[in-house]
């Protein structure tokens, strides 16, 4: 075991990746926090994250935040558990229901199936970004006006899916709205209200109001 430990200490001087991994597995008990390491694999340099906690920087709602997570941690868990940004909800945890939807790099994604380390370097937008002071975003107001929520648990994800949809398609037809929101489920059955809200928000946008 002490041999392995030594190898771990010498990893920069060309220890093979396999023995390095064994060594780091054994040293798991040490609460190390590091950024990624660059390891040499067959003459190629590759970034290696983990298995211990890694310091990563995420750009969330315009602000850079540094967080220490194991590389297996999802974007959703990093925000909810480490940064206390709890708008996005963990519901199915299997890329089906949409309650965890965030906009990453301009695209709606299920944050339960994106690794936090993978989301570095891209703007991450959550429902928390929408309100300006006490003023609801027009899309949020449209949800209120059209009863687009009942229990409200799916709503933050739904709102972000709608936001991404309207950003891409500011003047949708009702059919396009229906197709564009297929990735979000509401067990209360508020779909009619959500569709109406999207159409209202689109109309307000056309009327020249700020659509964020």
């Amino acid at each position, binding site marked *: 075991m002490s041999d392995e430990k030594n190898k771990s200490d010498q990893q920069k001087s060309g220890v*093979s*990746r*396999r023995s390095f*991994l064994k060594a*780091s*597995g054994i040293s*798991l008990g040490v609460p190390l926090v590091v950024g*990624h390491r660059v*390891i040499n*694999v*067959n*003459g*190629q*340099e*590759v*970034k*290696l*994250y*983990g*298995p*211990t906690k890694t310091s990563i920087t995420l750009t969330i709602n315009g602000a850079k935040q540094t967080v220490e997570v*194991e*590389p*297996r941690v*999802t974007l959703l868990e990093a925000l909810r558990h480490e940064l206390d940004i709890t708008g996005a909800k963990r519901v199915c*945890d*299997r*890329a*089906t229901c*949409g309650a965890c*939807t965030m906009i990453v790099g301009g*695209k*709606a*994604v*299920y944050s*339960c*199936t*994106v*690794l936090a*380390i*993978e989301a570095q370097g891209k703007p991450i937008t959550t429902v928390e970004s929408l309100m300006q002071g006490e003023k609801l975003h027009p899309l949020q107001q449209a949800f209120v006006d059209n009863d687009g929520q009942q229990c409200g648990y799916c709503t933050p994800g739904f709102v972000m*899916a709608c936001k*991404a*949809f309207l950003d891409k398609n500011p003047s949708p037809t009702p059919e396009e709205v229906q*197709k*564009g*929101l*297929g*990735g*979000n*489920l509401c067990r209360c059955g508020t779909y009619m209200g959500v569709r109406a809200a999207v159409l209202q928000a689109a109309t307000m946008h056309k009327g020249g109001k700020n659509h964020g």
Partner: protein
Amino acid sequence: MRQTPTVQSPLTLNEIYAALAECAGDLKIIAGGTDLMVLANAHQLEASNFLDIWRVDELRGISDEGDALRIGALTTYTQLIRAPLIQQFIPALVAASRTIGAVQIQNRGTLGGNIVNASPAGDSLPVLAAYDAALEIGSQRGTRRVAFNEFYTGYRRTVLAADELVIAARVPKVKAGERDFFCKVGTRRAQAISKIVMSAKAQMNAASIASIQIGIGSVAPTVMRATQTEALLVGATLTPDLIEQARQMIANEVTPITDLRSTEHYRRSVTGNVLTKFLRQIIEGAEAR
């Protein structure tokens, strides 16, 4: 104690090859994560260490190679849906991509991921089967090309060696006058895994079928081509009688199982009905002209 996973993040194809050569079998390649992360969250993933290839831009993009399109393995369904080249030359792949998951999945899921995940229900796979696609497979030992229809060797088994990666699919363009088709039958429009999924292509010569290729998913251990039914149809005059024969033949040719999504009986029947839909469309299209 269960070891927590490491994640390697290569930036180039050569780095991927090196990592796979060094650690073949111990690494799980992850791209968009739409299949693997679901398993990981459910603690059903055995491999502990990930090779995250999402940042390797060499694996993205669609290029025109004359009679075929080359589609990089990391091309997402959203990119396929929006690409004018795919819309023009492989319309069935656009139709298939639109039925995969929903927007959030289409933004992350990749064609290469659908291929190597090797699910019999992968919705892009019948298109690649019907179009006689070829796969480019790379490793530190070099690259090779494998016919898509020879890629799968059994349920979730492929010809890929442990150090190899699917880097692109080469899909022949639809030819002038050729009809292409895609139909997925699932529980609902979005987010459903197929009960049966079919893609087909046919070239008519007046009233007879000059060529036809039929790819079907979710009805066998792997995506399959309905070669017996194709043989019945090629060279024959397309009549309602022939369509009925083909419907019965294909229902017997497929080998579905009963599982949580559907029954064997339903899958056989609906496979026949979906083929009927395509063949009737051809007749109606000819009459409309």
